[in-house]
């Protein structure tokens, strides 16, 4: 029995289906990411897990107990909100211990919990301050402290880092990962940031329009995206996707043959797809002496690597090359890739073929 089971959960608001049958099993200690564009239903799903919203149908079990209709306070969960939602009228210690106080934990135990959490998060010197006197990063820590104080069976995070600046976000991301490793509490984490998803998650559920498009480890999601949407959503710059028709020896886009290996050809034949999408991640492309000819139209150096936009006969392709690029805009280049890097999708269903 998993720590959290979501079975066939649906949610509709006045005829609009926000969640269309979600099934997820989360093991104890696992870190699950819900990722997707805004409006995909990930926050609704989190609210249903928390008990702040009710499923139209389906069930939610936490630690083997059916909590579909239980009140939030009876679910033994803690949540970190995007806005942190610290109580402005209480100091940091009061914020952290409020949940314990509501559960009638004796004062001495509460104080001990506050000290333990403050030490863990290095906020001991802030305990007497009000939230209004804290910086963004400090508020974030207090919000996590409030969640940690109670030792819940399940942690929920609702885009906790999106209000922080870029540098702090990277720091806090690492800290959340360390905290999770130390505390080993089952966690569900909502984000729209694919980097957060890839770096934090044991498993990632990529959602779109109320459906989980793919549920898997970061490697599975990145290496074998199940749908075109997942392929394009995860990874930056996004995967190059070309419309291509099956042709002898593989597929062809605008009359130009694109290579497939034997296994991919077999899968394509078995699928019976009449139109396909040929996907290549930018890092799969490399510059070579021979290959697909094209012209560099734009160069974006980021420091450790360079993105080059190349205009070819099959369309515009983004290549991602390590270090600096010697070619300049307007240069004629040739692109090469290995068939093992190819992602092939059915153009009609947008599902993965190989």
């Amino acid at each position, binding site marked *: 029995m998993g720590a959290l089971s979501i079975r066939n959960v649906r949610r509709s608001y006045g005829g609009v289906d926000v969640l269309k049958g979600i099934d997820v099993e989360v093991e104890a200690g696992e870190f699950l990411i819900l990722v997707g564009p805004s409006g995909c239903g990930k926050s609704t799903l989190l609210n249903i897990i928390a008990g702040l919203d009710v499923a139209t149908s389906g069930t939610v079990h936490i630690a083997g107990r059916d909590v579909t209709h239980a009140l*939030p306070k009876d679910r033994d969960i803690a949540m970190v909100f995007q806005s942190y939602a610290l109580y402005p009228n209480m100091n940091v210690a009061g914020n952290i211990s409020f949940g314990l106080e509501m559960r009638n934990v004796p004062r001495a135990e509460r104080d001990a919990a506050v000290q333990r959490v403050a030490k863990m998060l290095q906020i001991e010197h802030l305990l007497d301050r009000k939230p209004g006197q804290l910086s963004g990063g400090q508020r974030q820590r207090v919000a996590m402290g409030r969640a940690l104080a109670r030792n819940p069976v399940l942690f929920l995070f609702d885009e906790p880092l999106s209000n922080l600046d870029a540098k702090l976000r990277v720091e806090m991301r690492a800290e959340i990962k360390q905290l999770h490793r130390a505390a080993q509490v089952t966690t569900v984490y909502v984000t729209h940031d694919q980097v957060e998803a890839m770096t934090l998650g044991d498993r990632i559920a990529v959602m779109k329009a109320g459906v989980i498009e793919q549920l898997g480890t970061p490697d599975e999601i990145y290496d074998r995206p199940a749908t075109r949407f997942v392929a394009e959503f995860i990874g930056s710059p996004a995967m190059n996707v070309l419309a291509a028709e099956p042709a002898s020896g593989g597929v062809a886009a605008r009359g130009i043959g694109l290579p497939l290996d034997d296994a991919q050809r077999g899968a394509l034949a078995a699928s019976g797809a009449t139109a396909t999408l040929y996907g290549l991640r930018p890092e799969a492309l490399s510059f070579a002496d021979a290959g697909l000819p094209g012209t560099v139209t734009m160069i974006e150096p980021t420091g450790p690597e360079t993105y080059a936009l190349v205009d070819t006969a099959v369309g515009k392709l983004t290549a991602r090359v390590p270090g600096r690029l010697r070619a300049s805009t307007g240069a004629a280049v040739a692109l090469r890739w290995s068939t093992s890097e190819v992602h092939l999708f059915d153009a009609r269903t947008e599902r993965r073929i190989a």
Partner: protein
Amino acid sequence: MSPGQPRRFDWHRAALWSVLALFALFFLLPMYVMVTTSLKDMAQIRDGNLLSLPTAPSLAAWSTAWSSACTGVDCGGLKPFFINSVIMVVPAVLVSTMLGAINGYVLSKWRFRGSETMFALMLFGVFMPMQVVLLPMSQVLGWLGIANSIGGLVLVHVIAGLPSTTLFFRNYYVGLPDELVKAAMLDGAGFWRIFWRIVLPLSTPITVVTLIWQFTNIWNDFLYGIVFSGAGSKPVTVGLNNLANTSSVVKEYNVDMAAAMIAGLPTLFVYIVAGKYFVRGLTAGAVKG
């Protein structure tokens, strides 16, 4: 203006200040006349110069107005009426403000099917003329057996004030993040504990605004006071009216003015003490609501 620059005469600013001073003078003049007249004796008043300062200032008229001026056949001054008003205003203000806070909390943070409609209907109460409720209300007070009593007046004022107090609190609470309530729910707090521990402590500005608003309205009310009060429960506004309308041999303007000042002082006092909250709270509510 940067500090190093020599100050030049600013016509724009001068014009602004003159206009403001003129208006302040215009609105303060009646107050000046009231205060000076109340401190004069009748001989000086008969001289006829309204704006002159009292030659021999005395609080005799105030003392008369407070404890011995005649209102109809009673000659006990405004004091009993003033006390009635205090006994009426304190519970009416506290109860209507408290209920408004709870209503606003429910209508903003615990929405239910039809809560928006209910709020829209309540808004009618804000704009409804007071006269409309006179007859039905007197009927109800009669049924409840509290007609002509201070208790009845308290009930009338609580009910009449609820739409405004609800509106104030509801619009203020709409600006409080919903996530605060959700976080408290997850922390294990229920409806009342969230209200007492989280929401109410964050309501100081709007509470002060509502208290002032209700205090002023109820203290200054004349219509309900004259319609629903009995012999022993008339509020100070009714007392003042009776005092000013009671004709004796000579019209004692100094006593009338002193009585009017006494009747008006509590609201003036409340504004001066809590006025800054009033302005702050009104604008806060306006921006957020």
